[in-house]
């Protein structure tokens, strides 16, 4: 099992366990876990409505590609530890990571 932690907008943290070998993105896991995120573009790094901050484990993740970096550049609140959840694959690289949901709550 791959274990990581999600911190929601109120600061509450919830551990998540995902079986290895499941080809999901973090965005898909967040939606499946009933977190309130839009993920408008469906995972194409086009909308940034799945913006997360990696509080722990940033270095272990695969490097962001150009499309993700381009989109992060348009976010007023992006920091050096910002990522798009749709671009993070759930594999052993996220083991022990802590992700904080940073995108606005859908109205």
């Amino acid at each position: 099992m791959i274990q990581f932690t999600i911190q929601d907008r109120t600061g509450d943290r919830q551990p998540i366990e995902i079986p290895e070998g499941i080809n999901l993105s973090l965005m898909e896991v967040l939606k499946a876990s009933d977190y309130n995120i839009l993920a408008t573009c469906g995972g194409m790094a086009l909308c940034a409505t799945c913006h997360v901050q990696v509080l722990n484990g940033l270095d272990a993740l695969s490097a962001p590609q150009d499309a993700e970096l381009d989109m992060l550049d348009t976010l007023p609140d992006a920091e050096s530890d910002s990522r798009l959840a749709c671009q993070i694959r759930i594999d052993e690289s996220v083991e022990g990571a802590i992700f904080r949901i940073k995108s606005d709550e859908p109205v």
Partner: protein
Amino acid sequence: MITTDICIIGAGPVGLFAVFEAGLLKMRCHLIDALPQVGGQLSEIYPQKPIYDIPGYPAINAQVLVDNLMEQIASFNPGFTLGERVEGLDRQSDGSYIVTTNEGTAVHCQVVVIAGGLGCFEPRKPEITNLERFEGKGVAYMVKNPEQLRDRRVVLAGGGDSALDWAVFLADVASEVTLVHRSDTFRGAPDSAEKVFNLASQGRINLVLQSTITSINGNGHLQEVSITAKDKTVTTLPADHLIPLFGLTPKLGPIADWGLTIDKSAIHVDTTDYSTNVERIYAIGDINTYPGKLKLILCGFHEAALMCQSAFRYVHPDQKLSFKYTTVNGVPTF
């Protein structure tokens, strides 16, 4: 006042196709969209993306699909109000509605169809103290008329293509252009980034990197912006205009206050006809939700067809609807 049978909120692919289905049943449509062009998400976010799940098209470019839909509905002569955001909805004593926009446009209709996709696209607003207080008083989120910025001190914020392009353009228009960006590199078009760096080296753009704007001040109108660098030092710049350019983000907008049953930014509908809990208001496409909902354009097309069959009874209460294939009568025109 504009009078029509169906007022469609949202001019994305599903809203456009609803015009066609309505037209087949001799119902006229007027579309309202907050964006200045039709096509919704397709035109605004990914115009050059190929789409592979439109029946009959092994692959179709998103903007081409929009263009084709416009061609398909041309004979029904729909009305358009673009670049205006729906603000109000007033139910009349006979059950009809008057829909009003932020620019004062009013549309009287028998049926309202919300085809708003992901909602209105609104500018992403950075967290800057006093930002909203100075909206319209020096703060704007797009450049509508560059001439209004001639010989003025303009501060742009952002690192995408819009920020780069406007910085280059305004270098010849404004008396002073400052571009503030949180990073020390730009990931916009390399050519634009190079132009910005060149103009900065010539002293024609004031480039403030690794910094963010944290507060603004003025006396009735914007007068200064405070910029905080990564090392926490704060500098204050005199400025007449601040234009944060951080792209658009989807919001449900005023629709959220219309008494509709909403779950996670989506409107609950009855799948027999995609009606909402409010009589004469329908929701189709990505903005609705129901068990098994798939956010696909083709599902939105199906929803548009069923919605129109249901809406007919409000638009033509004295007529009996008899279903016919387009192969029987062809496509009628108005």
